[in-house]
């Protein structure tokens, strides 16, 4: 492909693509990203390609795309234009799909989604999971091949860039973003337009823009999905941002554990260069900008702005005190604008549609949409994009379909290790940066982990502290020692050795850490502990006084035993016990040796007759 040298040439290319693509009457899209591939979508894709070749019809195309979001039913395909949605496929289903749906236009009912009452819902848009969503950032996920820039261009990609470079001043761009009310999606919620303005006004050159794709919160995969499904939206946003603040050099700092996202991002950047969206004299405008990829090293703290910049400079990723903000002195001591993946991906929409269209979605203080990864004990797990202001209940029960196995909802964790657990009484809270802060949690980057009656809240608090203990960089004492002390106390409580005064001590340490830690990792670390103490106080008391874990999670407080009435003597448990703690002959009732048992729960999960019980 020859470089595109002007705005007219870009439109010409789009027209040409229209000519080609409008002939593709049926598009079968197979989602191929980390999660879907794990579920087996690669095999489906291969089989479809093979079978479609035999049909010999140029109007039918099979493409691999980013995720449609409904991970629970993967591997799945969508057949356009009607958006027929086939789920939980195996390669054996492919022939039937081609014979019936592709050739004759019939629906294969057994492969469609069925609602609670068993009603068949063949079309994607009618499935409850999608009904309440609003897809701006994810609008092209599932529709375009992320490894083919022409797909993005065909659907209007790089028009925002073209609009900016051909007729907007940097100040106008910043004004547009400011008016839209866009706030950072990386967790803090800082107004994006303001950040750009500060950085534009800061003295010094070169200036840098950085995309934070470190996505360290466990249980969150929004940024990975955006990059794997539509990397060009992020790149386009970054180029526009760079133009607005006056930068010619950018970086994407991408998480170590995301090999596929890294691969797709590399391809996208190379293609953008080849087509002239990156590099010298972009679209003949005189503006130059390029992006380099830096792989993270697998340290959570490197998601923090100053640590991330230290890491790009080839240093150990430790935060520094922010007397001077990174917009003034960031990477290599130069003015730097750092934004999250999703923040950047929102920019093309705002420029294309105008700030009003964006600002009309959401609440007073939180505009636009937010992507969440809805996971844990919820029925419909997956990636959801919802308008700000929607309630947690709508997300978990209407979109998510409620709790798995019809168990009882207990709480929802948002904001990762910096956030908290929100209990049932706040389920009607709207998704809004400030409202979530009020109840001690935070919007965070978008992980939403649903917990049910089988989740122990003391264990959840302990889990996050254990995580943070590994991830604290250790530079400042309040965080390093505070986390250690709190973890020790929580370990004690979960082992049944807790004391009543422990709760007060936890609160005291929390207070100290919030006031004295150097970076936000330390100041927010107490949140999971404080919220669980506030909302699930009884559970703490249960552990401390009765030495009981009602959720059956804390190992030292539970016991496994054989229900003698149900045991058939099948020997399965005995064979699978890793420490040979189960004794018994074939067809005779088995017995667990309590001395040996390490309470791993294997027998409990493995028994086909539910003969192993827990107390």
């Amino acid at each position, binding site marked *: 492909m020859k470089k595109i040298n002007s705005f007219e040439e870009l439109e010409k290319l789009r027209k040409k693509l229209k000519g080609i693509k409008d002939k593709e009457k049926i598009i079968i899209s197979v989602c191929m990203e*980390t*999660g879907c*591939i*794990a579920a087996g979508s690669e095999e489906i894709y291969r089989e479809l390609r093979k079978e479609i070749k035999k049909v010999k019809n140029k109007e039918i195309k099979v493409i691999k795309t980013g995720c449609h979001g409904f*991970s*629970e039913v*993967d591997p799945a395909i969508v057949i356009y234009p009607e958006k027929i949605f086939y789920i939980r496929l195996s390669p054996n289903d492919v022939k039937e799909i081609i014979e019936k749906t592709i050739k004759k236009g019939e629906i294969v009912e057994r492969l469609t989604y069925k609602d609670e009452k068993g009603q068949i819902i063949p079309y994607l848009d009618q499935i409850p999971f999608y009904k309440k969503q609003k897809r701006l950032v994810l609008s092209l996920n599932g529709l375009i091949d992320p490894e083919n820039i022409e797909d993005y261009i065909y659907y209007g990609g790089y028009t925002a860039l073209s609009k900016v470079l051909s007729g907007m001043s940097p100040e106008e761009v910043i004004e547009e973003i400011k008016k839209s009310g866009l706030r950072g999606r990386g967790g803090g919620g800082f107004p994006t337009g303001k950040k750009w303005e500060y950085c534009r006004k800061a003295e010094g050159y070169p200036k840098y823009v950085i995309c934070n794709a470190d*996505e*360290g*919160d*466990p*249980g*969150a*995969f929004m940024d*990975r999905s955006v990059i794997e499904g539509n990397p060009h939206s992020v790149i386009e946003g970054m180029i526009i941002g760079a133009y607005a603040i006056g930068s010619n050099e950018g970086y994407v700092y991408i*998480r*170590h*554990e*995301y*090999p596929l996202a890294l691969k797709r991002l590399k391809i996208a950047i190379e293609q953008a260069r080849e087509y002239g969206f990156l590099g010298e004299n972009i679209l003949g405008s005189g503006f130059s900008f390029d992006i380099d990829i*830096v*792989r*993270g*090293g*697998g*340290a*959570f703290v490197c998601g923090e702005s100053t640590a991330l910049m230290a890491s790009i*400079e*080839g*240093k*150990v*990723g430790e935060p520094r005190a922010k007397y001077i903000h990174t917009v003034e002195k960031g990477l290599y001591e130069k003015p730097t604008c750092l934004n999250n993946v999703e923040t950047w991906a929102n920019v093309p929409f705002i420029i294309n549609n105008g700030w009003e269209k964006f600002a009309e979605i959401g609440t007073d203080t939180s505009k636009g949409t937010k992507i969440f*990864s*809805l*996971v*844990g*004990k919820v029925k419909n*797990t*997956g*990636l959801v994009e919802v308008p700000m202001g929607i309630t947690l209940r709508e997300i978990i029960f209407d979109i998510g379909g409620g709790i798995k196995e019809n168990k009882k909802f207990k709480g929802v964790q948002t904001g*990762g290790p910096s956030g908290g657990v929100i209990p049932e009484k706040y389920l009607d809270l709207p998704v809004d940066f400030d409202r979530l802060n009020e109840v001690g949690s935070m919007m965070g980057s978008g*992980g939403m*982990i649903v*917990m049910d009656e089988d*989740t122990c809240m003391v264990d959840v608090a302990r*889990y*996050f502290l254990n*995580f943070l203990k*590994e*991830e604290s*960089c250790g530079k400042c004492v309040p965080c390093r020692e505070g986390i250690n002390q709190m973890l020790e106390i929580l370990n004690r409580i979960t082992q049944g050795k807790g004391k009543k005064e422990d709760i007060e001590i936890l609160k005291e340490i929390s207070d100290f850490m919030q006031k004295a830690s150097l970076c936000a990792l330390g100041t927010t670390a107490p949140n999971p502990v404080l919220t669980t103490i506030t909302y699930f106080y009884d559970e703490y008391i249960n552990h401390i006084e009765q030495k009981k874990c009602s959720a059956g999670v804390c190992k030292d407080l539970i016991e496994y035993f054989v229900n003698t009435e149900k045991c058939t003597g099948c020997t399965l448990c005995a064979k*699978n016990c*890793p*420490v040979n703690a189960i004794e018994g002959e074939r067809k005779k009732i088995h017995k667990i040796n309590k001395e040996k048992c*390490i309470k*791993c*729960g*294997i027998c409990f*999960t*493995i028994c086909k007759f539910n003969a192993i019980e827990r107390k």
Partner: protein
Amino acid sequence: MRKLEVDKILEKNGWSKNKIVGILQDIQDSYSYLPEDILIYISEKLNIPLSQIYSISTFYRAFSLKPKGKYRIKVCLGTACHVRGGYMIAEFLKNKFGILPGETTEDGLFSFDTVNCLGACAIGPIVVINEKYYGQMDVRKTEKIIKGLENEKNKQF
């Protein structure tokens, strides 16, 4: 030593001190760990104190100073996998292999690590063996896969 290969990696990264994290990543990718002789070589070539390279190698989780096994098993202990019982899989592997996360079995066949989220949370618990992702795992399925790998080994010898 494998100077040529290492030089290629240094070349790719422009012999730049600033790219040391990236350089170490490329080394880790090629050798599945950071061999001592290579670290010494890099320290001399790029004029970075070995102590600094050591501190970077131990700060970031992506690096390992010991060789990994033929089958590198990662168990996700991210929040979503944790609440769905991923920790039981880790517990099982600890007992099964008699090693702790980060270690390798004596025969060099398996190494086992835990990781905080692999971004496939919707189908957790997740186990990754070499580059293959397995979703909705439990102890039983993990055991089956490992048995399969062990059998494969027996066939080879």
